[in-house]
């Protein structure tokens, strides 16, 4: 169950329920039990009936009528030279933290 169609299909998996939702909502909409139950049901049906590997079914649920949210993820239009420098610093800091943590475990 996932929200990144291109990444999962590029990898290649046996069966895939794709929800066209913002990343983080692979299992359905927040605080919406029906949405989550329907998303899971699609996954269960795929387990039962997919005919071959790389079967994708796209959930019919829409995140919102307005699809403008799709423009925002890692939107390059928001990157100024200052933002780039700041984001690079944040990324390097995060890598350093992760490396220290990895080496400690």
């Amino acid at each position, binding site marked *: 169950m996932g929200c990144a169609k291109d*990444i999962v299909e590029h990898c290649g*998996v046996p069966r895939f329920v794709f929800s066209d939702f913002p990343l983080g909502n692979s299992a359905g909409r927040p605080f919406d039990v029906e949405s989550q139950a329907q998303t899971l049901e699609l996954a269960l049906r795929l387990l039962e009936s997919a005919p071959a590997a790389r079967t994708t079914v796209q959930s019919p649920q829409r995140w919102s009528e307005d699809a403008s949210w799709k423009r925002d993820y890692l939107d390059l239009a928001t990157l100024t030279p200052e933002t780039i420098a700041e984001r690079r610093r944040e990324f390097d800091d995060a890598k350093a933290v992760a490396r220290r943590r990895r080496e400690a*475990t």
Partner: protein
Amino acid sequence: MTTLPATPAAFADEHDVPIRYMQRTRDYYLALGYAPYRWAHFADAPFTPLRTPLSRARVGLVTTAAPFQPDAGDQGPGAPYNAAAKFYAVYSQPTDGAPDLRISHVGYDRAHTSARDINTYFPLARMKEAVAAGRIGSLAPRFHGTPTNRSHRTTLQVDVPELLRRCREDAVDAVVLVPT
């Protein structure tokens, strides 16, 4: 009798397509000055038909979410990316509880997702309901968390074999993987 002119179909907006994450990520990190990441890509994907009716099958669950760690900073809803909350080894917890798992160590869509509801990224509660309804035979006694390690070698040679070993120990018929 007159014929009506053909009505153009009301197409969705051009940008209303599944987000091209690989391209966005590549372009973003190139703009920051980093080499692009090479995404996993296989020519073949495995496939095994489900051999047991689902209503009698034991189903497992695998997540990339992390158990909450009190000493690892902000992991709450809306927390910025938190590298200190990453984990580096497969972990397992019982499915008969209500685990506290977070995704602050992951690059999810923070602008449009609050991660306030665990059920959007960890469907254990809905799976339990499916068992209660007879849709699934049973859940595995434990679920497993797998690291999101950028190293292909570590993922393929260390984490995935360990994950497989634990799933086989659980004697599951199928596994639902819910990555974030």
